[in-house]
């Protein structure tokens, strides 16, 4: 594996290996909860919390876990942090916890988290794993924010719950429904690929 500087390790999660636009991982919650910016943001934060703590945990005990049971161990670790996040939100942010509904417990099966443990934390030092998790989390939050902003503005005429469109604007209800998620994500991925192709051909 070519060694990367700490900075590169972080930045790769934002663009080159952005979990949503480039790796296409964790798309289920991405499509489901991005109907409002607040939900997308909360989901991003909860996932980040789980990813960062799981990466720290996995990278620090990686030597103790026999390869045969590593996936099971990772899942137990991830599920523990997900439950903590779920209870914490129910206790301190009840409205958000309500609007995310079943998607918080479903972070357990979010491929980004298990994917990072398998691809990175199980092979790298604690420090690098932390940087990687921070980068991936930021990339995930960023992608959710972009997606949910587009959907909320076009689908409800609001941003973070505040009216941003004038009274002339007729909300495109489809944007906050599941088809809107697929359409928006598809267009965003196309744009990301296009940018990538342009920069590659230039470089």
């Amino acid at each position, binding site marked *: 594996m070519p060694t990367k500087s700490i900075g590169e390790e972080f930045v790769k999660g934002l663009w080159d290996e952005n979990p949503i636009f480039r790796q296409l991982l964790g798309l289920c919650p991405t499509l489901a909860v991005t109907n*409002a910016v607040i939900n997308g943001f909360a989901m991003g934060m909860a996932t980040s919390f789980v990813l960062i703590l799981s990466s720290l945990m996995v990278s620090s005990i990686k030597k103790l876990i*026999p390869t045969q049971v590593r996936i099971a*161990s990772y899942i137990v670790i991830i599920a*523990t942090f997900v439950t903590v996040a779920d209870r914490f939100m*129910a206790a301190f942010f009840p409205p958000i916890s309500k609007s995310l509904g079943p998607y918080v417990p479903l972070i357990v099966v979010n491929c980004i988290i298990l994917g990072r443990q398998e691809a990175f934390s199980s092979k790298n030092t604690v420090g690098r794993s932390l940087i990687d998790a921070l980068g991936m989390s930021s990339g995930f939050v960023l992608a959710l924010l972009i997606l949910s902003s587009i959907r909320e503005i076009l689908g409800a005429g609001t941003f973070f719950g505040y009216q941003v469109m004038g009274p002339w604007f007729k*909300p495109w209800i489809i944007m906050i*429904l599941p088809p809107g998620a697929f359409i928006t994500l598809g267009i965003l991925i196309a744009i990301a690929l296009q940018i990538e192709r342009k920069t590659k051909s230039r470089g």
Partner: protein
Amino acid sequence: MNLSTRMVVVLTSIGLLSASFLAAVGLLTKERIALNKQREIDEAIIQVVPGTRSSQKLYEEKDLSVYGGKDEEGALIGFAIHASGVGFQDKITFMLGTNISLTRISSLTILDQKETPGLGAKITDRESFLLYWENKDCSSTISLRKPAVSSPDELSPTEINTITGATISSEAVLNTVNSSLEQVRRLIKEGKLISEEQDAD
């Protein structure tokens, strides 16, 4: 240590550690989560039975609880019916405020729902749905006005408005309201809606 023992030991200890950790987190947050739920109910009672200073649970069963709203002197001024019924996606839970004789709905508020965002989820929206529930005559069965009208004045006192594009959700709320009113009427008739104080007398 051979491999299979090591696998068992590692998995068991990870499981035990996370279980004890979760037990601690559960204990720490349990009270607060219960408190949040209770606070939500209390706020909803005050909202649907105007003038409530204190409230008391009068009856409870699965999917239906009845609270009594009381004024400063402790006199009963209305009922708050906390009920759940099947919606389009999942259960819809609401709090319905009525007067003591169960002939007038003061207002309705939705506590829990998982309806389609942008369509059925509008049942939580005051302008598109809840406004049309205020001050309704519920001495007879309430019906749904379809197609929807744009102002509460256009409805008869026993009619409520439909959300355009979300008839099923509107109907689901209406049906649960009608059936729970029916049930509460029966409870009163059978004398089962007795507050604890009166019980002690």
